[in-house]
């Protein structure tokens, strides 16, 4: 296992070097921001229209991208928590939470009216999540990156899966991300020692390398008083990433065999008392962030490790550096943020420059990785990071600390890079978010013994049709 990983890493490195060298030919001096701007205006074939807007409106659902811009886009000057300036252009951030579909509802109201909106109200740029990105990508409300002067070459260092998610039905790329949210299994080192007698990532990986082994480990964990996962929903995305068909084809909803596997395996584990049916993000779920919670592992990407596992709280496992990271039974991804340019923007060049700087400039991406511990969307930067000696920064009240601290000194980038390169996301549909939500909710009834599997599926079908009346079910 270890050897294979090393080989892959060196392959990735070699590939990255070629890319870097190719990249160097075009770019002379890339000091982020300024440098790329010059290039995008001088060499692009499809030159966008002149910038006329005085206000750059950006629609977001949280503050992540805003803080990335504040910290890493050199020309940006912060004015207030919801406003900034780039040159004489005012940047306005509108934050609408994703919950209850509010963020998308807001976009769905604004985008169709964007052409007629007054210059200062036009949406110039907005962010998308993987679960529904196709909805906007396949519409006329997002611009092709090529029309903004961003070429395939510019994007060549990005992971393929991040481009697949934002490729429309005609093969045009219409968004770009600075993150590669490949994910893995985050295990409690203390628990691993107790259950498996080792906390070495490779040895732990062997014990969970497929779902059968995972189940065996779950039984052993149970004997030692640990739950294998905090809830059944922890493993959901591992299965759902590796499906053989999308949720919806030709307006018909179907449950993929791998999703069914999730249901069957989860049901067994719940019955054996090896996990629970709590909701993600609930208090019951996050109990395992502390040693008393007695949870063996969580499943998630780098952002989960960095931001959500209570690393700045005394007594948490993350605070003591007590987690380890391995790939787990199947590689998967969770989350990620894609930047799209809204059709009708009156600042196309600025938008292009922001997208280019934030998602393709290697110096900026490396800076983001170092400072914010994002798993960045650059094969070469990740390869560098995998072999770099990343300093352990202790978490404090205001800083979550570095990923290497939380993982007890482990550098996870080799595993993250490996995961990202193996991802295949051909099987996504615009309905994924709604289907995922409703499916998890419906299956909870089955896991809790409140309904048979068939009844739970019937409830899922009903809920999906309520959300999307145009779909049919079995």
């Amino acid at each position, binding site marked *: 296992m270890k050897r294979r990983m090393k080989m892959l890493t060196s392959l990735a490195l070699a590939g990255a070097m070629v890319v870097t060298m190719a990249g160097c030919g075009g770019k002379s001096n890339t000091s982020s921001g300024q440098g790329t701007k010059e290039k995008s205006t001088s060499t692009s074939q499809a030159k966008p229209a002149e910038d006329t807007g005085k206000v750059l409106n950006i629609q977001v659902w*949280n503050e992540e991208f805003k803080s990335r811009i504040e910290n890493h886009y050199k020309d940006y000057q912060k004015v207030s*928590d919801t406003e900034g300036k780039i040159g004489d252009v005012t940047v306005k951030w509108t934050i609408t939470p994703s*919950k209850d579909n509010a963020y998308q509802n807001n976009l769905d109201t604004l985008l169709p009216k964007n052409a007629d909106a007054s210059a200062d109200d036009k949406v110039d740029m907005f962010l998308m999540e993987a679960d529904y990105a196709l909805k906007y990508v396949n519409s006329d409300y997002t611009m092709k990156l090529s029309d903004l002067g961003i070429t395939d070459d510019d994007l060549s260092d990005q992971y393929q899966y991040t481009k697949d998610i934002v490729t429309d039905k005609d093969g045009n790329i219409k968004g770009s991300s600075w993150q590669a949210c490949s994910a893995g299994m985050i295990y409690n080192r203390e628990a691993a020692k107790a259950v498996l007698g080792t906390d070495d990532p490779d040895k732990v990986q062997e014990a969970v390398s497929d779902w059968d082994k995972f189940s065996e480990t779950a039984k052993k964990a149970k004997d030692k008083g640990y739950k294998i996962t905090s809830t059944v929903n922890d493993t959901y995305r591992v299965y759902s990433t590796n499906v053989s068909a999308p949720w919806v084809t030709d307006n018909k909803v179907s449950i993929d065999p791998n999703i069914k596997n999730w249901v069957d395996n989860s049901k067994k584990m719940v019955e054996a008392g090896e996990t629970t049916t709590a909701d993600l993000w609930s*208090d019951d779920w996050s109990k395992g962030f502390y040693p008393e919670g007695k949870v063996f592992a969580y499943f998630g990407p780098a952002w989960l490790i960095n931001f959500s596992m209570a690393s700045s*709280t005394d007594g948490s496992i993350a605070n003591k550096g007590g987690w380890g990271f391995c790939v787990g039974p199947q590689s998967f991804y969770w989350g990620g943020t894609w930047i799209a340019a809204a059709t009708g923007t009156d600042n196309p060049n600025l938008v292009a420059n922001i997208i280019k700087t934030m998602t393709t400039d290697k110096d900026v991406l490396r800076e983001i990785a170092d400072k914010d511990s994002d798993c960045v969307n650059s094969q070469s930067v990740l390869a560098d990071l995998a072999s770099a000696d990343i300093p352990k920064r202790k978490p404090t009240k205001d800083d979550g600390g570095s990923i290497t601290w939380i993982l007890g000194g482990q550098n996870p980038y080799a595993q993250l890079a490996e995961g990202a390169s193996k991802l295949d996301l051909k099987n996504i549909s615009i309905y994924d978010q709604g289907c995922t939500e409703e499916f998890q909710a419906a299956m909870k009834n089955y896991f809790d013994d409140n309904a048979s599997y068939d009844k739970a599926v019937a409830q899922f079908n009903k809920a999906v049709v309520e959300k999307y009346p145009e779909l049919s079910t079995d």
Partner: protein
Amino acid sequence: MKKEKVTTATQIRRVIAYIVLVIITILCLFWFYILFINSTRSHAELTKGFTLLPSSFIAKNLGNVLLHGTLPIARGMLNSLLISASSAILTTYFSAMTAFAIHAYRFRGRKAIFTFILAIMMIPTQVTSLGFVRLMTSMNLMDNFIPLIVPSIAAPVVFFYMKQSMDATLPASLMEAARIDGASEVRIFNTIVIPLMKPAIAVQAIFAFVSTWNNYFLPALILHKDYMKTLPILIAQLRAADFLKFDMGQVYATIAFSIFPVIVVYLLLSKYIVGGTTAGAVKG
């Protein structure tokens, strides 16, 4: 002998009453206590578990919400105050006026109108919300307070209460006397009827203020610009924040902050509930 027996029975009943009342009081106030405790705790403390002892984060939580947050909470409080106070005033004044029309005058169709108003009391607000939002969109009243304030003028439930209490407290002779003095009908209503109706108005004003203050359903459909939003919408937004910003400490601090004005308004008007209800009584 007989007399003594009655007193012991009363004594026992009194003890039972006190015990029950104390239990009920605890059940009623407990929630305010946990809200307060939770608003003093940090997010990490809150996820770790529950406690009855306060922590030290209240200033930090409130600071995060009011000074460093991206949501205009202070502005939201102002919006909520404006909408709730206006609704409470309009609904009590105009419901009293409508009730007065039915109570004091004998005109053709009076009974039919009375029955009609009682019948429309049964229309649930949510039922018309779809049409309401469409109409407001076409009237260009989205992101405007008018759709949240003005409709309170036509409130059948408040009207019904006012009517009942007028029947009990407003004799016709009073108006006769005023008319002889040469007062106009509008003047009679404003200077004689309204003051007499004070207790009933206070009770309904509290009900109206509180329910508007806590209303989420309709304002959430009408108000979309951040600086127009009311507190319940902003609280829902805080709760909906995702993992990066999700901070239950802030949520609880905001809830505590938003309950404060209602408590003040309630305590100011509650003397009418506590003492003066006889005057506003519904006649049996």
